């Protein structure tokens, strides 16, 4: 049973928008979420990463008040989800990993339908609907049937829907899944705009480099357990990931490679067809210092290319491909 919480369901602006402590969820015999704890301060974009079946959607569904059999404490704006789900619903905008289509409604009717479901006053509905349509750049599609929209437009419409009641917290489950590159970029830009508006966002995705661009913090989850969380830099530091620097040197031979191996902070040097890959312990030597050291050895540098820190590497290192 979740911990008892006697307080009234009044949202507090000082509390973290999301506070999850020791969350456990069971689906029959399957222990889907095993003691996850997350805290998301106001205005933060939290990326949830994990393989299929890791427990991302389940955790999001708990926050969306759609799952009852959990233990632990889950709060949104200081309001306990288990005790006051109705109050929590007012503060969240939930976008599932599928697009629910009402084939008989057009875009205007679809948004007015959900505006009424969120109890927005009848007089305000038109203004609110027009605003969210403008924000998502769908004003010109207002009369179109929902099921005739492209997948990218449907995702934008879904975002418009979750913004109708101006929630503090957006729960976005795989919003870029199945989109073509253009639609994906459009959704990413829209999410950036929402971040600038001060919305707190919890987003799950498989497209790791997109989360890297968007999120202020990341949580990596596998078989229901949180394996790492923090800012990207913190995760890389935790993993002690080595930076790879690709260089092309004029007249590089075995002697040069041996010289490079001797530089402090270099852990490995590999001669490739047209370049040399240098693995660098960044906590011991910065990339700029490596460049300085190569010049100091009297080497003529044709190309110097540090490899970007790779979320995929971090993900693969942290997870083992297990499922609950």
């Amino acid at each position, binding site marked *: *049973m*979740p911990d008892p919480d006697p307080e009234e*369901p009044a949202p507090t602006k000082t509390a973290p928008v999301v506070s999850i402590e020791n969350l456990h969820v*069971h*689906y*029959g015999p399957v222990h*889907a979420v095993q003691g996850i704890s997350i805290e998301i301060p106001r205005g933060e974009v939290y990326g949830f990463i994990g393989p299929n079946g890791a427990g991302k959607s*389940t955790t999001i*569904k708990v926050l*969306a*008040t*759609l*799952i*009852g*059999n*959990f*233990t632990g404490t889950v709060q949104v704006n200081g309001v306990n*989800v*288990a*005790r*006051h*789900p*109705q*109050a929590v*619903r*007012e503060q*969240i905008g*939930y976008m*599932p990993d*599928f*697009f*629910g*289509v*009402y*084939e*008989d*409604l057009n875009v*205007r*009717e679809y948004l*007015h*339908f*959900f505006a*009424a*479901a*969120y*109890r927005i006053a*009848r007089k305000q*509905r038109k203004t609110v609907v027009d605003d969210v349509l403008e924000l998502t750049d769908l004003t010109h599609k207002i009369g179109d049937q929902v099921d005739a929209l492209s997948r990218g437009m449907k995702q934008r419409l879904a975002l418009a*829907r979750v913004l109708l*009641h101006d929630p503090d917290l957006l729960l976005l489950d795989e919003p870029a899944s199945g989109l073509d590159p253009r639609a994906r970029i459009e959704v990413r830009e829209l999410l950036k705009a929402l971040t600038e508006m001060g919305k707190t966002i919890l987003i799950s995705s498989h497209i790791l480099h997109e989360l890297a661009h968007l999120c202020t913090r990341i949580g990596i989850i596998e078989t229901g357990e949180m394996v790492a969380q923090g800012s990207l830099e913190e995760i890389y530091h935790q993993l002690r990931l080595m930076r790879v620097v690709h260089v092309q040197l004029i007249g590089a031979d075995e002697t040069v490679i041996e010289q490079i191996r001797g530089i402090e902070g270099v852990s490995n040097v590999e001669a490739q067809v047209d370049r040399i890959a240098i693995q660098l312990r960044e906590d011991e030597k910065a990339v700029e210092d490596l460049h300085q050291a190569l010049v100091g050895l009297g080497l003529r540098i044709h190309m110097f290319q540090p490899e970007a820190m790779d979320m995929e590497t971090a993900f693969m290192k942290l997870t083992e491909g297990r499922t609950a």
Partner: protein
Amino acid sequence: MSRRWPQLGLPLLTKELIEQSARRRTYFVRLLYASLLFLLAYWQFSAILTSSGSNNLAMLGTGADMFNRVVELQFLGILLFLPALACGAITSEKERNSLTMLLVTRLGPFTILLEKLLGRLVPMFSFLLLSLPLLAFAYSLGGVSTLELVSGIVMLVLVCIHVAALAVMCSSWCSSTASAFVGTYTLGLLSYPFLVIGAHALLDRFSGGGINPALTFANTTTPIQLTTESPARIWIQVVVLGLPAVVYMGLGRVFLVSRAQVVRQNLVLRFFRQLDHFFFWLNDLTTGGVILIRDDVQLPDDSPITWRETQKKTLGTTRYLVRVLVSIETPLFLVLAIVAGMAFQTRLGVAAEALYIVWALAVLLVTVHATSLVSSERSHQTLDLLLASSMSSREIIQQKHQGVRRLMFVLAVPLLTIFLFESWFAMGTPGLEDGLLAVITVPVAALRSAIQQYDYFLCAVLSVVIYLPLCSWIALWIGIKSKSQVRAMLLTLLLLFGWAFLPALIAIGQTEQMVVQLLRYPPLTVFACLCSPSVIVLINENAAAANLAETSQLMWYTGVNFTAYGLAWWGLRQWCLARADRLLGRLAADTHHESHPVTSAGLPLENVS
């Protein structure tokens, strides 16, 4: 290059049988089938043994009659159960997107079709085996020849193959199990008279006499005839039943490939659009295009789900409800008006038959609509969106039900029409002889008749007022609990068929005698009323017509019956609303948290059957 020899593995059949054996539903259906078969056989055998008197020797030779009854029951069972069992053979693969994977394997299309057919026939044959003890009992009483026994077994196996082939063909053609289900029963009903006429025409030609097909159909209503004369007669029926089965399989083979990727369509919507075209054409022809009620769709008010159910759904909008009403009311009114001038028993008989048909139609429409209320949200993946909104679960269910309420009001009209006509018929059709004035005098007389026979009319009206909502809440509840709409629909129809329609079916042809027997024992009557909602309808239709019961007696039964069923309706409604959060798989609103397991789809674990 070495030659690849065909290997006899039947992988698809093996998979089908393993899947079926792993389902609880298989054993439930088998138990249900066995229970119904043995119950009905017991009832039929008892009647035969009672009629043969108390002398044990007189029972000898009655086996032939019993054998025929068992074969008839199994024949009925095949017609009722097998289409439902077999119609999902191919559509289930289409719905799971696995048919194309099967088609690219080394299994040829015909092999797939054949293995699917066998996969559905095996459980049906196991149902046929259930009657072995009954057949043994009948055989032991004597009168059954070996040829008759062989003929019976061959005929039942043939009917199974014929029906299963038809269902598999429909399954190959259709995109969803629901449409294959409807298609199989419809095609089966349409082809049935031709089979009967064909079978009897061939049999008659074989025996050398002339035949009037219409008379044949009227005299005997099955295409199978057990023979005691010649094995050649069996072969004729093999041709009559087997040849269409071969054709069905051939067509199924063609459809399997050509319609493997068929896109799902909303058949109800298509049907109503066709109906739209017809009504617009009719309106243009008769009024020059005058439209009295325009579809003026407003944006949702404060009850968005009610708005969608009544403004956007096919069976909820005023326009389509008027169409449904006109489609039922017009032919009904014409038939009742035509029989008004006929003999007393004839007109009452026709009205009663019309009542049963309209009841069946009303229950079917309400069931289909009510089961789809929540299950369609689930299949369209929109339920979670509603559940994450600010609306309470109670509101969601109440607003969802509004669409069915409108449909029930519309369906109540033809039922009330029949009740008015029946009251008027029972009073001797007063006002009919008034010529043109009858347009005014007949409705007044009908109303006066209804008031005079207030006991009958009250019981009839209460049956509509209580049974239709009860049916809608049962369907809604099963719709919430079930994973798919098709399953919910089949479960509800099966439940209502067994609970409400089976007693009416058993009573066909001898309703009046049964009602007389029942009314002799008031406690038994009350018990029967509480067991099945159709009992009071049968009593009301027959007792009032034949003056079998006193007014006070009928009022007493009416009071007890409708109090009980009214309480059941109210209780079920309150229970659904009180447990709305849990039923819909959502955290209970502002109450102490209670754990209850759910599936990964968000469906409460208790709902998964």
